[in-house]
């Protein structure tokens, strides 16, 4: 009997709220624009990224909960 396949998942990226490019979670300075990724900028607010990001965070939390509930 062969052991089941096992894999890993990618690290999580979040949007820099200044330039709306992806950065690794926890970055203090955006490597793309040099700004604070947590401070919402004009484009982030105007283009409606805040609710999108909120939904993504909720999705990830539910996904993690579902993934590890069986372990």
């Amino acid at each position, binding site marked *: 009997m062969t052991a089941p396949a096992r*894999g890993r998942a990618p690290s999580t990226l979040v949007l820099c709220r200044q330039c709306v490019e992806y950065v690794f979670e926890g970055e203090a300075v955006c490597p793309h624009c040099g700004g604070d990724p947590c401070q919402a900028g004009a484009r982030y607010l105007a283009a409606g990224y805040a609710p*999108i990001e909120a939904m993504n965070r909720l999705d990830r939390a539910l996904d993690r909960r*579902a993934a590890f509930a069986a372990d």
Partner: protein
Amino acid sequence: MSDDSPRLRVSLRDQLDCVPVYVVWEITLGCNLKCLHCGSRAGHKRAAELTTAECLDVIGQLAELGAREISLIGGEAFVRKDWLTLVRAVRAAGMDCTMQTGAYKLSAAMLEAAAEAGLQGLGVSIDGLQPLHDHLRGVPGSYAEALRVLDACRSLGLIASVNTQITATVMPQLPTLMEVIADAGAKYWQVQLTVAMGNAVDHDEILLQPYDLATLMPLLARLHARGLQRDLLLLPGNNIGYFGPYDALWRGPDRGHYPGCPAGQNVIGLEADGTLKGCPSLATERYGAGSVRDTPIAELWASHPALQFNRERGVADLWGHCASCYYAEVCRGGCTWTADSLFGRRGNNPYCHHRVLKLAERGVRERVVKVEEAGDTPFATGLFALVEEPIPAAAR
């Protein structure tokens, strides 16, 4: 056709358990088109394609492994006489079933039978406006046939999407093409860069150059916005990326960011003779994992070395600019097929918008140059050299 529903979305658990959520299955290499960019050099069927009984057994094995969608492709899938039997069997096994087609000679009666058999979506290839499409597809009238089939899908209530290969000549046509597709009632438009494999190596003048992404990506962003107004969702294929200023636009709202190539982790590819791969498009000689005729799929999936390369998400395979990229750990060189087909080795992908922009900051761009032709077998690759050069003043 959309993969946005929770059932079809690849979850964290799927990634950890390597569930083959998506199966893309070439059920025959027989084809009624002669596409200049065909990576599998389709036309004649393979010498020993799986029998109906063998296919039904494969469907059962895939369902047991946890597959949730099987997409039937060719060649041209419907030239296989038992294709409706396979559609029915996929649905009876509890999986979704879709099909990709060139649509040439796919009659309204066949479509109606497919819908009755349980086919849930049809992806129709349209690679440009009529003269360009017919030229690339190698058969006059194939453009009109594709539009006819889209219209028939609308009449039947079958969800239709359009797949477009982005070649060097189609870029100026994309805005008009999008209006045609929206008028025809398609709901999804998946765009994909033509990859240097098979017939596309023979006709390498149709390939985009990596630096063309500086023009293409802003154009796609504009088309994405226009598509939303027309109820047509532009979806980026696996080799459209990566990151850069527009990734949040088309990957962000529903699925977050590009997660790296899923071949062999959450995708299975099958060739018509039973050869298993991590992705249907990968070069058989480097990524073929043996035949389902000889070994149970579960055993191949769990242990064959040709399927393992993405599962640990390591960065040891990366080279060139991809090795030192900020996104290396997540992206891992993007689409394995695109990079491997160019260089005979995965892990360095010049068709990346982030990379193009980073190089442009230094006044540099990359282009690919063919140095070796591809063999005449399905999924054969040639060899390309990567040239780094100053951006010409006229292009700045």
